[in-house]
C-alpha cells in the first residue's frame, strides 16, 4: 500500500520539479515554445529565399547547359538591361494591380451587403456563393472561362443576341485579367466582409446622428475603419496574380513573370536565371508589404 503510494508519488514529483525549474526560467520556456515555428520559418522560408537569391549569382554554361557555381552578376544585369524582361515584369505588375482593383470594386458592394444589410439567411447564401467556386478545381474554372470567352462562346453569343457585335478577347491580356479577377475574388471578398462586419453598428448610428447621410458615413467612418482589412484582402489578389503562370498559358498569349521562371527551369534548365528572375516578384511583394504595413493592413489580420 505504502510502496504503491510512493511509486506513484515519485513521478509527479519529478514532473513538479521540472515544471518548477522551468517556471523560474521564463526565457527558456519562451525559447522552447517559439523554437520549432521559428526554426521552420528560418530554414524553410527565409533559407529558401536566401538560397534562391544566391543561386541567381551563379550562371549556366552556354554549351553544356550545366550550372556553373561561380559568382557573377550576369543574370541580374540581363534582367535589368533587357527590354523584354522589363516588359514582362511591368505587364505582370500591371495585370496584378488591375486584378486587385477589379476585385476590390467587385467585392466591396457584395461584402457590404452581406455584412451590414442582409438578413442572416441571405448572408449565409451570399457567403456560400462567394466561397463555393473554391470547392471546384482551379483548372476546371479556368477552362470554364476559356469556353465563355472563346470566339463562339457564351460571351459573344450573349452580345450577339443583344445586337452588340462580338469581342475578340480569347487568348489575350483581357481574358487573363478577367480569369484572374474571377479566380481571386473569394480571397478578396472574405477579408473585406470580415472587416466591414467588424465595424460596430453604433459608429454608423453615431455618424447618422451627427448629420451624415449613408454615403458620407460609408466614406468617413466605415471605409477608414475597414481599410486595413481591404488592403489585407487586396494583398491576396496581388500576390496570387504575381506568382501564377497557368492562367497566362491557358487563357493568354503573352508571357508573365511566372512563365519566364517556369520556362527557364523546365525548358532551358537555367536554374540560376530562373532564380534571379524570381527575385523580381519577391522585391515587388516586399515593397507592397511595406506599403501595406504603413497602411495598417497587418493589424487587421
Amino acid at each position, binding site marked *: 500500500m505504502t510502496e504503491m503510494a510512493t511509486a506513484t508519488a515519485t513521478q509527479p514529483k519529478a514532473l513538479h520539479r521540472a515544471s518548477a525549474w522551468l517556471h523560474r526560467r521564463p526565457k527558456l520556456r519562451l525559447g522552447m515554445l517559439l523554437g520549432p515555428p521559428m526554426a521552420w520559418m528560418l530554414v524553410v522560408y527565409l533559407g529558401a529565399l536566401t538560397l534562391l537569391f544566391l543561386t541567381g549569382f551563379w550562371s549556366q554554361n552556354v554549351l553544356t547547359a550545366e550550372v556553373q557555381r561561380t559568382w557573377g552578376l550576369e543574370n541580374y544585369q540581363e534582367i535589368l538591361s533587357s527590354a523584354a524582361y522589363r516588359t514582362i515584369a511591368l505587364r505582370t505588375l500591371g495585370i496584378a494591380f488591375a486584378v486587385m482593383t477589379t476585385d476590390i470594386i467587385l467585392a466591396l458592394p457584395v461584402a457590404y451587403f452581406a455584412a451590414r444589410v442582409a438578413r442572416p439567411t441571405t448572408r449565409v447564401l451570399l457567403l456560400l456563393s462567394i466561397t463555393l467556386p473554391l470547392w471546384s478545381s482551379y483548372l476546371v474554372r479556368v477552362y470554364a472561362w476559356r469556353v465563355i470567352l472563346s470566339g463562339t462562346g457564351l460571351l459573344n453569343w450573349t452580345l450577339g443576341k443583344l445586337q452588340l457585335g462580338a469581342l475578340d478577347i480569347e487568348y489575350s491580356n483581357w481574358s487573363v485579367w478577367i480569369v484572374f479577377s474571377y479566380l481571386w475574388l473569394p480571397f478578396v471578398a472574405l477579408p473585406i466582409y470580415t472587416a466591414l462586419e467588424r465595424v*460596430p453598428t*453604433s*459608429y454608423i*448610428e*453615431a*455618424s*447618422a*446622428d*451627427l*448629420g*451624415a*447621410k449613408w454615403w*458620407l458615413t460609408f466614406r*468617413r*467612418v466605415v471605409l*477608414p*475603419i475597414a481599410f486595413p482589412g481591404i488592403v489585407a484582402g487586396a494583398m491576396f489578389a496581388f500576390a496570387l496574380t504575381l506568382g501564377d503562370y497557368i492562367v497566362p498559358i491557358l487563357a493568354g498569349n503573352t508571357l508573365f513573370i511566372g512563365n519566364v521562371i517556369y520556362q527557364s527551369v523546365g525548358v532551358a534548365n537555367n536554374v540560376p536565371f530562373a532564380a534571379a528572375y524570381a527575385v523580381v516578384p519577391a522585391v515587388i511583394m516586399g515593397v507592397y508589404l511595406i506599403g501595406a504595413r504603413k497602411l495598417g493592413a497587418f493589424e487587421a489580420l
Partner: protein
Amino acid sequence: MPDIRLEGLTKEFKEMVAVDHIDLTIEEGEFFSLLGPSGCGKTTTLRMIGGFEDPTEGHIYLGGSEVTGLPPYKRNVNTVFQSYALFPHLNVHDNVAYGLKRKKVAGDEIKSRVHEMLDIVDLPGYEQRRINQLSGGQQQRVALARALVNRPALLLLDEPLGALDLKLRKTMQLELKRIQGDVGITFVYVTHDQEEAMTMSNRIAVMNAGHFEQVGAPQDVYELPATEFVSGFLGASNLLEGEIESVNGPTAKVALELGATVALPADRLPTRQGRIGIGVRPEKIHIQDASAADASSRANAIEAMVRMSTYTGVSTSYECRTSDGSPVVVYVQNLGSSSVSIGAGTRVRLSWDPEHTFAVKRVAKAEDDGDKTATAMEGART
C-alpha cells in the same frame, strides 16, 4: 413650449411589444429620465426619438413638428451612446468636429466651437489626443462634447455612465447636471439606476414592460409611488394588505389584514373601495420597544416582532414581521453614540404619520387567488 411629444408610441418586435402606446410631453430645458429595469423598453423609446428605430405605431413631435419616420440626420437631436461610439480613426478634435463638418460650418468657427466645448466638458487642450489614449471618463466627456457641440434641441443619453466605476459615476452625475444647466438643452436620460435618475432629473418616467408606471418629479415618484412596481423599484418599501374601511372628507381609513386600522389622505387612494396595498418607506417609520411604547402622536401604528437588526454605519435597519407574516423594514438613523439598538426577538410598535402613507392598487392576481383558497379553507374548518 413642449420640446418633445410622444403620442401612442408603439414598437413591436417579433412576438414582443417593446413599447406599448406611450404618451409623453417633455418641456424645453428639462432633465428627463426614463427609468426602468432592463428590457422595459426605455432604450427602444430613446432610439425611436433618435431615429434609429421606426415606431410600429404612434407619432413623435420635436419642437412642434412631426419627425416620425425621418432618418437620424434630419432630426435636430443628438445622442450620447452607451458605448460612446467615438470614431477610433479620428482624434478628439475631429470626433467633436464631425457633426459641424457635416453641417458645413466654416473652418474657423469649427475650431473655436470645438475648443469652447472641450472647455465645457473639462478637457481643454485635448484636441490632438487619440481616442484610445483616453480613460473611460474622458471618452465619456468627448462623447458628450461631440453631441452638444451641434447645439441640438434635444440630447439623448443612453446609460452613458454605465461603464464607469462608482466614484467616477457620482462625479459625472453632478458634472452632467452642471453641463445641462450651462447649455440649457433638454436632456432625455435612460438609466436603470434609480439613485442616478433621482440625483439628476427634473422629472422621471418609471417604465415597466413597455409602458409608463408613473411620471413625475423625483420626490413625487419616491414619496408617493402610484403602483406596486414603482414602490418596489425606487428604494425599499413596505407594503401591507388592507381593505378601504371609510372615506371621510380628506381622510380615508383602511383596515389592514393584520388587524390595525391606518389613516391616509383620501386623494391618494387609487380606488374608492375594495382591497388595496398600503405602503410606507422604511425611513419614515418610528420603532419603539412595545413594552416602553408611549403611544405617541403618530396616528398609524402596528405591532411587529424584530427578526434581525443590521448596523450599517449611517443607520441601523430592522427587519420585522407583523402578526400576519408581512415583512416590514425600518431604517433608523444613528444619531447619538448612546443609541441602543433593539435586538432580535423584541416585540415592537411601529408608527408613522398618515402623511407618509401611500396606497397602491393590488395587481398581484396569483396572490389574490391564494388568499381566496386560504379563506375558503378557513371557512371549511369553521
